[in-house]
């Protein structure tokens, strides 16, 4: 379970970094990043996730919505193909899935692992991205900014190869997160309709659906 938690930690780390990376900031200036991140109070965005695996002839597409409210509230909601929701707020994390029209709380332990992860995400929300020793990050400037992160921990070998975050330089939004697990397995998440610092109903972080 520890390794699974570590993998999920990486997943949410890159999402946290990506969603909060301000456009136009000097890519290697983490102090500026921390200053800009401190101004973010809420985020909501749609996402489309494509899972590529050797076993699939075409990507498995998932869709959903992401919400964040400072300091540490997150709602990560998949609408299809498997309807599920992760809620995290005040150190309490729960995961739900839908079955036969009913909402069922996931009791397999994944929520606990994600609780540890999301507690760290709260730190990342403060812009403390360079404080995490689990990653070695590099930045490539171009039409967009691409941040590439490679796990520094040996126990990640064979599980996550790299994470690429593509950031728009024109507007304060992330475009894509790409998590490469190995040569044939990767997850690509495209964000759209991102809204920053608009009111988000607090009940979204407490209740399902």
């Amino acid at each position, binding site marked *: *379970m*520890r*390794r*699974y938690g570590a*993998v*999920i930690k990486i*997943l949410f780390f890159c999402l946290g970094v990506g969603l909060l990376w301000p456009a136009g900031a000097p890519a290697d200036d983490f102090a500026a990043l921390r200053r800009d991140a401190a101004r973010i109070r809420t985020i909501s965005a749609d996402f*489309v*996730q*494509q*899972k*590529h*695996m*050797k*076993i*699939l*002839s*075409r*990507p*498995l597409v*998932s869709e959903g919505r992401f919400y964040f409210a400072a300091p540490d509230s997150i709602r*990560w909601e*998949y609408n299809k*193909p*498997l309807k*599920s929701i*992760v809620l995290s707020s005040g150190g309490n994390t729960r995961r739900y*899935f839908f*079955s036969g029209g009913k909402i*069922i*709380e*996931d*009791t*397999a*332990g*994944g929520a606990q692992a994600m609780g540890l992860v999301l507690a760290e995400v709260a730190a990342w929300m403060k812009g403390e991205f360079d404080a995490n020793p689990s990653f070695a990050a590099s930045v490539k400037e171009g039409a967009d900014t691409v941040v590439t992160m490679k796990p520094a921990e040996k126990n990640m070998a*064979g*599980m996550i190869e790299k994470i690429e975050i*593509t950031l728009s330089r024109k507007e304060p939004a992330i*475009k*894509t997160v790409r998590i490469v*697990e190995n040569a*044939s*397995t990767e*997850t*690509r998440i*495209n964000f759209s309709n991102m809204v920053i610092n608009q009111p988000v109903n607090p009940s979204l972080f407490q209740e399902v659906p």
Partner: protein
Amino acid sequence: MKRVLLMLTVVLALSCQAGHEIKLFDRPPAESSACPCPYPQTKSRFIHAIEVRSFPDVKTALIGVTLIDPASRSISCALMSAEGMAVFEASATPAGLEISRALPPLDSQNFARNMMDDIEMIFLPPQSTDIQKGTLADGRRVCRYQSNDGWLDMAGGEGGKIEIKRYEKGGGLKRCVTLAAGASGHYEAIELAAPGIFGYRLTMTLIDSQGPDGELFVPDENRGGDK
């Protein structure tokens, strides 16, 4: 709570248990000579939402991908979380089992072997040529495939359902699978129950199925999304 769990365990254990005696046909009537055959005839890929319930009160949901090649009797499968994280990948051929990814708690050889056996039971036809045909106590026609370590019963049910049960040599029920016929075939809704104290129940709902295409992986240049 303990009482509920005990009752659930008993229900799991008994739900598929009763009536494995069959009355054999002396001479099978013509219309009963064909045994149920829900199995794919060509290389096929199935993607299911899988709801898992197991002891003591574990409830979770995963996405499962299964690739079947009936010609070579090979199986590839992957399990991933709703968030898309692959937690298990393995393939099996008559030559053996190869696990390419297994994150805890799914990292035991036993889990992989049992999972492959379950998939084989659901998606590949029995290999036994020792087949008996008859009726169950409830009157349903059944085909019984004998093997060295037990037998497997296949019987039709209401609404085109197919019920597959695997028994060990002593008569103990090991697995009970129900395939519900739907517009997309017999794999639209699958129920699998493994009875016993540490039993589990899987409810699988088809998300997508794909026929043979020869291409297993989409090259990078053909992928959708932003580049």
